[in-house]
């Protein structure tokens, strides 16, 4: 207890680095001429690399808490920090092609870094008030990022995201209020001690309120409506970021919360199983006849949140639950970035049919897309396969055999719409179709990012074994 009462601000080094980086980009950006904004990009990238390095070195220390037990520094936080930093770095890669030398370039980078800080705080929060702080820090920059795309669709996407975020934020705070009233405090250690004696219905209401906020951040059912609109309406950079990075913090936070309040109580685990199933089915079925690749991917990410919620249902029941969630998050992040980066490399191709013949014109890009889509289906030996396998196993091991069946069924359902996209890629091109831009130019950055992310997705799958050992560690309380 003594150690946890101390402040230990050094334990928050990754968050501090990214936050300071964001401030530097924001302030420095206003002094930079438009053609020199790449300097801001370099600063942002260095901050993210520094945060990742600090997070990796922190992983070697034993699990502990900082700021009087309100922030956990453990394997889960460490993994979320690294994934957040790396994924944001990849988003910068997408941005380098899309918004280089545009009026709001450095502002976008600052917002990305602020949001990334918020995501890291969400992942580590072991106190409800810190959770609120993380939620707001991760959400508010996001509204700005979505809106920066401009145009009518951008405005609509920002408005939807903002309204949904405001609503779920209120529910989150309402839930925190209820839990605070029941437990007499907001620290997770205290919640774990006192909530089992509190009235079940009230605890349930409070937890559901908090979950509402987190499900909005994750983009899971029933707070998912903004995801497809935002992915379609905003720019490639913003779409990639908001469908990838916030999920990392939100899902770790969901896991931490469920693990804390569900001790010896399986109602909440069942709720998690139901939410997972709903998200998987709804996301997959809604993706079926989408014709815009980004909108299709948006729905696919809703389904992926369902898969990511599967191990939450096994929290505390199976030793595989937490490591499988963390692995799946890392796998999902690189795979999803690869798919979005391909769409960013071909910004004018906004219909599935327009991808016809891509393999002949741009074989590298087609291959990256193939790896990304097969990866999202869960084809071995790509990384998401290991994630799906271990999460389904964790669910069955935790007593939810039917959830493992739902995972398999949904993988099959998802195959069809991913095939709708990549079948034309490998078909013979039509006469007079929209041509593909030559490799190089501004789109070289997103294309290269897609390649890097696709290769990472394969490497992560093949190296699952050695990495797995690093993911096995208890939650700090």
């Amino acid at each position, binding site marked *: 207890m003594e150690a946890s009462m101390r402040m230990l601000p050094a334990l928050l080094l990754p968050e501090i680095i990214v936050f300071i980086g964001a401030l530097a980009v924001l302030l420095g950006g206003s002094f930079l001429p438009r053609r020199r904004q790449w300097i801001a990009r370099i600063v942002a990238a260095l901050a993210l690399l520094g945060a990742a390095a600090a997070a990796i070195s922190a992983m070697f220390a034993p699990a502990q808490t900082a700021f009087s037990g309100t922030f956990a520094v453990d394997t889960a936080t460490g993994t979320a920090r690294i994934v957040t930093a790396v994924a944001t770095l990849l988003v910068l890669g997408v941005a380098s092609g899309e918004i280089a030398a545009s009026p709001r370039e450095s502002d976008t980078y600052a917002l990305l870094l602020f949001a990334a800080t918020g995501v890291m705080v969400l992942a580590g929060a072991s106190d409800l008030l810190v959770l609120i702080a993380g939620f707001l820090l991760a959400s508010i920059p996001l509204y700005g990022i979505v809106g920066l795309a401009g145009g009518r669709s951008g405005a609509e996407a920002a408005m939807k995201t903002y309204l949904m975020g405001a609503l779920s934020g209120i529910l989150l705070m309402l839930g925190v209020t209820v839990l605070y009233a029941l437990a007499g405090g907001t620290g997770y250690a205290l919640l774990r001690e006192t909530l089992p004696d509190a009235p079940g219905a009230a605890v349930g209401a409070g937890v559901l309120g908090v979950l509402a906020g987190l499900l909005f951040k994750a983009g899971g059912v029933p707070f998912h409506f903004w995801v497809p609109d935002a992915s379609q309406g905003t720019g490639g950079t913003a779409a990639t970021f908001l469908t990838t990075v916030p999920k990392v913090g939100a899902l770790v936070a969901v896991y931490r919360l469920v693990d804390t309040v569900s001790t010896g109580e399986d109602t909440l685990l069942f709720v998690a199983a139901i939410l997972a199933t709903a998200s998987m089915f709804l996301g997959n079925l809604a993706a079926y006849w989408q014709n815009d690749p980004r909108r299709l991917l948006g729905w696919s990410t809703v389904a992926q949140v369902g898969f990511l919620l599967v191990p939450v249902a096994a929290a505390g029941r199976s030793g595989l639950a937490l490591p499988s969630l963390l692995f799946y998050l890392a796998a999902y992040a690189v795979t999803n970035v690869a798919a979005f980066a391909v769409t960013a490399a071909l910004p004018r191709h906004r219909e599935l049919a327009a991808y016809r013949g891509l393999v002949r014109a741009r074989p590298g890009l087609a291959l990256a897309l193939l790896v990304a889509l097969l990866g999202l289906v869960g084809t*071995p*030996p790509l990384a998401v396969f290991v994630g799906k396998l*271990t999460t*389904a196993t964790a669910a*069955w091991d935790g007593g939810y055999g039917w959830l493992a069946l739902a995972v*398999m069924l949904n993988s099959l359902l998802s*195959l*069809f719409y991913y095939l709708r996209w990549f079948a034309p890629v490998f078909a013979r091109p039509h006469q007079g179709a929209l041509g593909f831009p030559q490799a190089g130019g501004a789109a070289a950055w997103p294309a290269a990012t897609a390649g890097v992310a696709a290769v990472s997705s394969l490497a992560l799958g093949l190296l699952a074994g050695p990495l*797995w050992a690093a993911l096995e560690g208890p939650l700090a309380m």
Partner: protein
Amino acid sequence: MSMLSLIVFLPLAVAAVLAAMPAIGPTAGRWIWVAMSAAELVLVGVVWAGYEDPGPSGLAFEEQVPWIPGVNSSYHVGVDGLSLPLLAMTAVVFLACAVYALRDSDRPRVQAALFLFLQGVSLGLFVAADLILFFVFFDLSIVGMYFVIAGWGHGNAARSALKFFLYTFLGSLALLLGFIGLYVAAEPHTFDIPELVAAAPLEGSALTGGLVLAAVLVGLAVKTPTVPFHTWLPPAHTDAPAIGSAVLAGVLLKMGTYGFVRIAMPMLPDAWRAWAWVIVVIGIISVLYGAFVALAQTDLKRMIAYTSVNHMGYIVLALGAVGLLADDAAQARSVAVTGAMVQMVSHGLITAALFLLAGVMQDRSGTYDMGSYGGLAAPASRYAALFAVGAFASLGLPGFSGFIAEFQIFAGSIALAPVTAVALLGILVTAALFLRALQRVFTGPVEGRSPGFTDLRPRELWSVAPLLGLSLLIGVLPRFLLEVIEPAASALATLVRS
């Protein structure tokens, strides 16, 4: 790196190089493919020459490296009497395809890469001794074949490829679900095949055991395919290129039946016994349904596709019969398993040959319709001769591998359950349909598309003839094959019964 890893990863590595280097010209691509397949055959030959029976539930040329230790899954490979014959058959069929494709002009470099990829994946599946590793290769074979059908097929190739992918992917997911069930039931949790066989984790739990077996069986039955999971097969074959059909029928279908002997039977012996009658009945239905529907076809390729349903049905029938309650029938059980294994090899060789021959028809005149030909034996005598040999081999004439297989299957099965004799009708119908096909296409006056039909070219001859020659060799001198299979077959039969 040991022999087996070399056999699996060498074609994969060469495939990656071929795919990544457009500078390699078409001719070079084709010859690299042939050379690589020949090298694979040599490597498998070296393994066969150095093979010594590893004893019950042992593996030769074993190799194990931790892969995902968190779930006790490792890169674990090895061969025994159940896998070695299939390994050899796979190498032979792929080499035949490489030779057959020597004149293909449609993106030969990419095609070579794709087939080498499929070859590595298929060989990997047959040596896998870990369920996850098995699944990885199982799934990758589906992806590879999808691109073969979609990219090089004809007719409604895109649709057939999609149907193939969705259907067999469904099977693979059912299979994965079954694997997870086995993992969760085993104590300690593991995906290692020999460990799971030793543990037989669901012994005594009829309900879970039955459900897990059902998941595994559905997965394997789709791939095999048995009735009623066969509907993806005819369109896939009709629209696939000749070498695609040869690999699909010759090699990929065996992944299903191989899964029965490698996974379902030894790991779930209890459940296998409990459901043996159902499996036998499905086998009988597949045999009869496949034969009668094949009889009704006018399209030669569809006919061969349906005879595959029939021939694979014999295997299911024999393996089901092994689980039936019968006293003092250890010998019969062992014979039935041996017959099923020989049938896998035999069907691979013969059907690959028949599909390659059907491809010649498509090449020359663009149709498989048997009514469009007549008296083809006159302009294309070598073609007619080889086709006749293939047909006779397929209908199980003594002197060919099919006879050895079907004789043992029925000798074993009828001893265990006399009712299985009804499936003998299937042999009769197959004989009738092949004779009728021969008569319609090759005899009578030269008419339809037959005039001017060019006879077999050397590369076609040199791909098909060795396949049929091997079938003949097994039919006349089966000892070299049976000596490898029999110990493993009798060990499996004992495992299921004891």
